[in-house]
């Protein structure tokens, strides 16, 4: 994986339904300036900028890196735009890290964002191309059948999704940047909300958020402040329409995890990792990804959730930040996972800090659960 790379700055905006007070440029700049401040640097110290976001149709701006170059201090520098569906935030971090691991640059600013209030994501995701059938279902309608299949296979009881929805929102109450901070959140409240796509209830889904996340990546000799070292990074993709692919536990996710674990020397993720920030946009994806990522055996994921293993005080906390269920500026959601993993091993996660976290997983997925991006960061130099 080339030269050593570290996260030396993290910046986030407060995720919310509508940021009426800023333009898209203002939004990304806010996150970028916070990341630079964290690293003790300015735009002048940055060699290259990598921007990621989900489909351009979400805001109606095509190839927005052209317009955002000025706000991100990129003029005169190399700038890249990554787009790998929902996994894009993670992929963007990996593309930024690649520039350092490949020895091309010493400091790279990585920014991902979505300003969902500019349009309607469900509409933008359900356009009707010629010669294809339009499902008009949005992401929830696409993933619900996969969740039902998981429930059938594993025999998981119906309330597991509810437990995840409550657990992540309790964590969000400890994260000042989280979008959904719901006082008094409990199972009864989740179960009282409408069924959107069976078995997914309203409070078992992610919100639509405006927000941006930025990180500053550094080569070994250019580190400032407190580094989170990249111990491994991996991407995997598989075709959406391949007959026979397992959409409940995709091979690309299994392979991606195996790759990143190998790089980081992780043999038992539940034991070797201290905390994981995993892309869970619908509650049931926690037990599904617990299995796909090898934290337990097949059909056992829901038992970890039920036993509280993934809670903030459990043996392997998942989504201490509140996760995608609590904040979802889509294009940024993957980068937030990667950034929160870095904050944990830097010991800078604030109230949702997992005590003594030394090694953390950041995870993102996208498309029809076919694009995966992961990294493992650690407090120690690899």
């Amino acid at each position, binding site marked *: 994986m080339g030269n050593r790379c570290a996260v030396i700055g993290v910046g986030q905006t407060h995720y919310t339904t509508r940021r009426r007070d800023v333009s898209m440029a203002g939004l990304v700049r806010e996150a970028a300036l916070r990341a630079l401040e964290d690293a003790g640097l300015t735009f002048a110290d940055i060699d290259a900028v990598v921007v990621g976001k989900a*489909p351009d149709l979400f805001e109606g701006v095509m190839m927005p890196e052209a317009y955002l170059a000025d706000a991100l201090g990129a003029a005169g520098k190399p700038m890249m735009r*990554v787009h790998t*569906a929902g996994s894009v935030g993670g992929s963007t971090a990996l593309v930024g890290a690649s520039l350092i691991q490949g*020895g091309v640059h010493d400091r790279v600013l990585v920014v991902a964002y979505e300003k969902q209030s500019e349009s309607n994501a469900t509409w933008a995701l359900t356009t009707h191309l010629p010669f294809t059938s339009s499902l008009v279902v949005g992401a929830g309608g696409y993933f619900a059948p996969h969740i039902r299949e998981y429930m059938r296979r594993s025999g998981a009881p119906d309330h597991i999704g509810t437990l995840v929805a409550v657990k992540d929102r309790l964590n969000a109450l400890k994260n000042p940047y989280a979008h959904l901070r719901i006082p008094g959140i409990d199972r009864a409240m989740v179960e009282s909300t409408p069924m959107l796509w069976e078995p997914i209830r309203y409070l078992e889904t992610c919100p639509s958020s405006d927000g941006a996340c930025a990180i500053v990546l550094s080569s070994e000799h250019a580190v400032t402040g407190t580094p989170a070292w990249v111990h491994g990074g991996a991407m995997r993709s598989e075709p959406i329409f391949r007959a026979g692919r397992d959409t409940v536990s995709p091979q690309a996710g299994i392979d991606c995890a195996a790759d990143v674990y190998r790089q980081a020397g992780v043999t038992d993720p539940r034991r070797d990792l201290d905390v994981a920030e995993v892309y869970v946009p619908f509650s049931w994806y926690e037990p599904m990804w617990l299995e796909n990522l090898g934290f337990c055996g097949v059909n056992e994921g829901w038992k970890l959730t039920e036993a509280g293993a993934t809670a903030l005080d459990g043996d392997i906390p998942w989504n201490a930040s509140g996760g995608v269920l609590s904040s979802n500026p889509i294009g940024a959601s993957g980068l937030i996972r990667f950034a929160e993993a870095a904050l944990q091993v830097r010991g800078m996660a604030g109230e949702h800090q997992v005590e003594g976290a030394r090694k953390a997983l950041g995870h993102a997925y996208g498309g029809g659960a076919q694009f995966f991006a992961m990294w493992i960061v650690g407090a120690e130099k690899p």
Partner: protein
Amino acid sequence: MRPVAVAAFAQTTHTDHDTGLAEAELILPVIRAVREQSGLTEFGFTCSGSCDYLAGAPFSFVSALDALGAWPPIQESHVEMDAAFALYEAWVRLQHGDVDSALVYGFGKSSMGDLREIMTLQLDPYYLAPLGLDQLSYAGLQRSAVKGDFPAVARRSWESAQTNPYALKLPEPVETAPITDGAAAIVLVAGDLLQDRTNLAYITGIAHRIDPHYPGMRDLTRSASAAAAATAAGVGKGPVDVAELHVQFAHEEIVLAEALGLPAGTVVNPSGGPLAANPVMATGLIRIGEAASRVMDGTAARAVAHATSGPCLQHNLVAVLSRES
């Protein structure tokens, strides 16, 4: 940097209209061709470039994975940019040293919509897009600032294209790149895969830079970002036999030739360039492929390729290709 070379290049026979092929069908033959040329069926890294707005739907790159037959799952990424920038990402990935091959492809069907108006959407949505400037309008702004013999550029490009079987069969020279559907693919190799191969075009330098977005903040008669990218790529370190430039409007060639510091004898766009075929999102990648082809067929010892993005040449990538590493 670790030596990386182009080992294979293929492009579609471009068309000025929709032939009824979906994007995945457009890509499949060029992927097959570069697999055959390179003798490689699997790649350490794959990266592509495309634009959702050309198809008018999100995730135009998703169905492309079906054309690749990405199984078992592959290490893959995508840029919402011209595929020349995907090639840059792949070149960076090959610098890590753990993988030795990369597949890069780009595709676009600009016949599907009104490309000129679609390009308005890449402008600042608050201050520029509402002015209603379409692609021709802002190119016209730059054209009016630049001095040069634009018809001569158009004529030479059109004449060169007569021997390019992949270019459109245009009845007469044009100063504006035509609406085109097409795709292209390149295979990059490094490390052990460089051994035992004789037909290679080494990428001895590659770099890109972006300028401020607002045309009013730039001197449109020059391209600071193209000049900086050319310097970083080392264009001036040797002779330039051939240059393939991403010229979508004839006046851009004047600006770019100066910014890149091309010597007087350089043959510019022997393929006819984008004025003869402009499959948006693959056009820049094709410049790299064409330049590499000139090196591989021996007509050039050293060639330069250029790709651009954004209004009025805002973002420029320059690569130097050579027979020697």
